[in-house]
């Protein structure tokens, strides 16, 4: 693991995981060991093994065909784009992409699984190994190795009716929507190298931003396109052996992942400290009670009888394809974060905000390229420009404000040609499409004046019109200075150099 000192005062954390950082780590006597399994729906036009649309929602059972309904005689054909997405995901985490991979059947009966087996990958997944690099709110870089990422198909969705609460217990009947059946899913399995809830969320955010940036998934948890389970165990600090794990399911947001892991760690510590033993089982997270509860024990575990799917030919991943995908890879989040945070000295919050919005980051990079001033660029991009973007619902990079305009503006400010007030006004006018800031400044004579004669003229006028304030100042109420300077700025229509105004004003009043 690497550790990068935070170069700047840390801004507030991004609000995606409330409550982070509060009491993330287990008490010092115990170390938590956590592995995370994530299912991420891939973004493709069609489903994994048929031509049906891969889209969220729609009337139940309208995006179905003989293949994804598992009608007798129908056969799967693998989606090439999904396989390429897998390769991209693997490469992004420095995973190995074996030349040979295959699909296997995972056999078990479930009503919303049409074939009563799931096409998945058992011993020869499309990617093996790899490492996820992420950072915490204080800028600490962390790593968690991946075991593998494999490709499989999603199931349909059951709705249980008649029980009142949507649970299967007590329901009179169930309805199944197969629209989601056969949607491509990648399952990302981590090594047990995560040690607290903060790291778990940091790891998940890293997966999310990488997949979004690669365009392989939308990663919308609310639409179920990212679902995750956590294997949690504890052991005494310094111990090598792993403790008995519990698998936590039903976590529907990064926030619930954080809460569930903290709750589970606390539960296990309490059991062990009171002389009990943790039982290996699957536990469900309950958002309302904020606790986990037993879903099924190990004894009920399935024998999935994996075997190679004879309906699908093995996948041969030719090296040219891998290299083409590698070549098209954008700059990845950890590298971009390090560049912004360590090289450009942006705060963790600023760097993170940019890294999670790749087109905005590219816009920012263009501003830096043109202005050679990262700090001013980030101030404009995440400041006034982002505010205007929010107000107008137009992304900064789609606005009429071009990076070279931003660079010009920075030059105008840095050279004291305009002051910050004019700069702010100019940003607003550029946003409305008035063009390059320099030409606006020249056309309207907005350049800041530092001519002592002109400034003295403004000051004299203001002092003459505000005798009471002058008297107050001389009587010791020095805080009227701000008011008087403001009046001068107003009189100069914002063009007077505020530092010079302040300086001359003080001289005149003493």
């Amino acid at each position: 693991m690497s550790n990068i000192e935070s170069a700047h005062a840390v801004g507030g954390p991004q609000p995606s995981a409330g409550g982070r950082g509060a009491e993330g780590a287990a008490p010092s006597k115990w170390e938590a060991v956590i592995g995370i399994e994530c299912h991420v729906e891939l973004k493709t036009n069609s489903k994994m093994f048929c031509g049906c649309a891969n889209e969220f929602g729609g009337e139940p059972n309208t995006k179905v065909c003989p293949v994804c309904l598992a009608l007798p005689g129908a056969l799967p054909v693998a989606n090439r784009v999904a396989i390429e997405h897998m390769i991209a995901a693997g490469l992004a985490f420095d995973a190995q992409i074996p030349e040979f991979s295959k699909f296997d059947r995972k056999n078990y009966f479930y009503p919303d699984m049409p074939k009563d087996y799931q096409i998945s990958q058992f011993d020869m997944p499309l990617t093996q190994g790899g490492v996820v690099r992420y950072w915490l709110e204080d800028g600490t870089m962390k790593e968690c190795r991946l075991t593998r990422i494999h490709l499989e198909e999603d199931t349909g969705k059951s709705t249980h009716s008649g029980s009142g609460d949507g649970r299967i217990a007590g329901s009179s009947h169930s309805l199944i929507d197969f629209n989601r059946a056969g949607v491509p899913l990648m399952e990302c399995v981590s090594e047990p190298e995560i040690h607290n809830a903060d790291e778990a969320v940091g790891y998940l955010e890293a997966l999310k931003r990488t997949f979004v940036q690669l365009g392989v998934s939308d990663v919308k948890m609310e639409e179920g396109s990212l679902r995750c389970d956590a294997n949690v165990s504890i052991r005494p600090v310094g111990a090598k052996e792993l403790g008995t794990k519990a698998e936590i399911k039903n976590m529907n947001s990064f926030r619930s992942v954080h809460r569930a892991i903290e709750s589970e760690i606390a539960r296990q510590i309490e059991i062990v400290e009171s002389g009990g033993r943790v039982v290996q089982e699957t536990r469900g997270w309950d958002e309302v009670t904020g606790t986990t509860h037993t879903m099924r024990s190990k004894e009920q575990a399935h024998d999935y009888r994996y075997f190679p799917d004879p309906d699908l030919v093995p996948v041969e991943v030719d090296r040219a394809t891998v290299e083409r995908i590698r070549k098209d890879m954008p700059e990845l989040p950890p590298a971009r974060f390090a560049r912004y945070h360590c090289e450009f000295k942006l705060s963790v919050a600023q760097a993170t905000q940019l890294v999670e919005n790749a087109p905005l980051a590219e816009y920012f990079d263009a501003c830096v390229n043109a202005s050679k001033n990262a700090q001013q660029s980030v101030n404009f991009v995440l400041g006034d420009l982002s505010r205007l973007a929010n107000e107008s619902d137009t992304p900064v990079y789609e606005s009429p404000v071009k990076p070279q305009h931003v660079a010009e503006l920075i030059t105008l400010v840095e050279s004291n040609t305009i002051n910050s007030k004019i700069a702010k006004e100019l940003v607003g006018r550029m946003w409305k499409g008035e063009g390059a800031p320099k030409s606006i400044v020249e056309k309207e004579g907005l350049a800041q004046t530092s001519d002592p004669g002109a400034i003295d003229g403004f000051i004299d006028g203001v002092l003459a019109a505000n005798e009471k304030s002058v008297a107050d100042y001389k009587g010791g109420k020095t805080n009227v200075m701000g008011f008087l300077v403001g009046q001068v700025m107003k009189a100069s229509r914002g063009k007077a150099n505020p530092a010079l105004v302040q300086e001359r004003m003080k001289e005149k009043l003493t």
Partner: protein
Amino acid sequence: MSTVERSGVDVARAVNAREISAREVTDATLGQIDAVDERLGAYLTRLHDMARAAADRVDARIAGGEKLAMAGVPVAVKDNMCLAGTRTTCGSKILENWIAPYTGTAVQRILDAGGIPVGKSNMDEFAMGSSCENSALLQTRNPLDLSRVPGGSSGGSAAAVSAHLAAVGLGSDTGGSIREPGAFCGVVGFKPTYGRVSRYGLIAFASSLDQIGPLTRTVEDAALAYDVMAGYDPMDSTSIDRPLEPTFSALRDDLRGKRIGIVKEFETGKLGAAIDAVYKQAYRDLEKLGAELIEVSLPTADYGLATYYLIAPAECSSNLARFDGVRYGLRVEGNDVGEMYEATRAAGFGPEVKRRILIGTYALSSGYYDAYYVKAQKVRTLIGDDFKKAFATCDLIACPAASSPAFVSGAKSDPYSMYLMDYYTIPMSLAGLPALSVPCGSVSVEGKSVPMGLQLCAPIFAERELLSAAHAYEKATMHYKNNKLDVSLHRAPTGNLV
């Protein structure tokens, strides 16, 4: 020769030449079916309306100037192949009332080429069996001797073709299910190379072995139907994407320059003197046509049966999981979904299907997988290697198509003796090779003459060589001309036969 006795090639030629209409051929065939199928039981479903509508469409296309490879040829479709709007049962109670909403690729190609689907033919349940006796819905008899079985699992198609209730019968062969019923009914049964004909729309038994092929009275008809059905299908990723060589135009009349391997381990003496004599004569006939006979060895072929009865059940245990009562087919209600599954599958599957699902589930289960499934796959590779070695010294292999001629219904009461019927066809299936059976004479049993089949087998993709050789042999021997339909077939129903 009556209309129904005409070969498929002859029908297509005559319909294209407008000597006869597809509708006339269809009506004649349907008439024959209605006249005899009560006693034969070849068809689970007769498709009068669909067949007539298809025939009228073909006639319209011919009138419009089109030439169609199978114009007006009456076709029996095995009931494990989806044909939109038809009941597609797989010979099982679990699909007894299931209407296929789509048409499989091979069937569609037949229809597009002008073939007329006259009925859905009976089969062993889910193609598991060698006599058609495992059909849960109907008993099919051998048209040459109604006391005997037609073979299986494609027994309905074989019986239909033999009894002139279709010119072409579509069959599927997993371990011999086209070749053995072909031999039993005195017709040609041809299994192409695995992957040559799309399986899309064929209800799977064992995916890595299943292959669609034709049952016909002549080799020419088999070549005709194969040329129409074969070829890459984007809907089946195991179908082979490589150029197809037409076979029909390449049929030959002699075997000059061909080396034919006779398998040392398949010594026919052990099958009894009468059967031995038939095969020895067949080999001599091949020689007379100019072939050179060479002894070859398939030392691992003896493990074929054991290998097959691990791989095929393993795949079927998974393939048949979808028949769960949730979306289609039979559903027997229970107190919860688990009980519903159990009740549905208990009532819906017959004993042989249950046996194979159990064997396959066991072979794939944790702790046994390596010892059974993985080991079987290794042996499968060895069997394929043996064939490769053999084909280094010969062009084709000749051997029996079945262990015996058609037996009397009910004679094979234990599963193992039934499994042994496919002893000579299973190794080729495991190796994915093209193979066919062609009538090669008969033996006399209780005063009746019962046909035998010669199996010819070629290296993968050598369908052209295979059909060519079979055609030369057929033309020289004309054994199918000796088929005599059981005299009871045309009698009014007596009630004691059906």
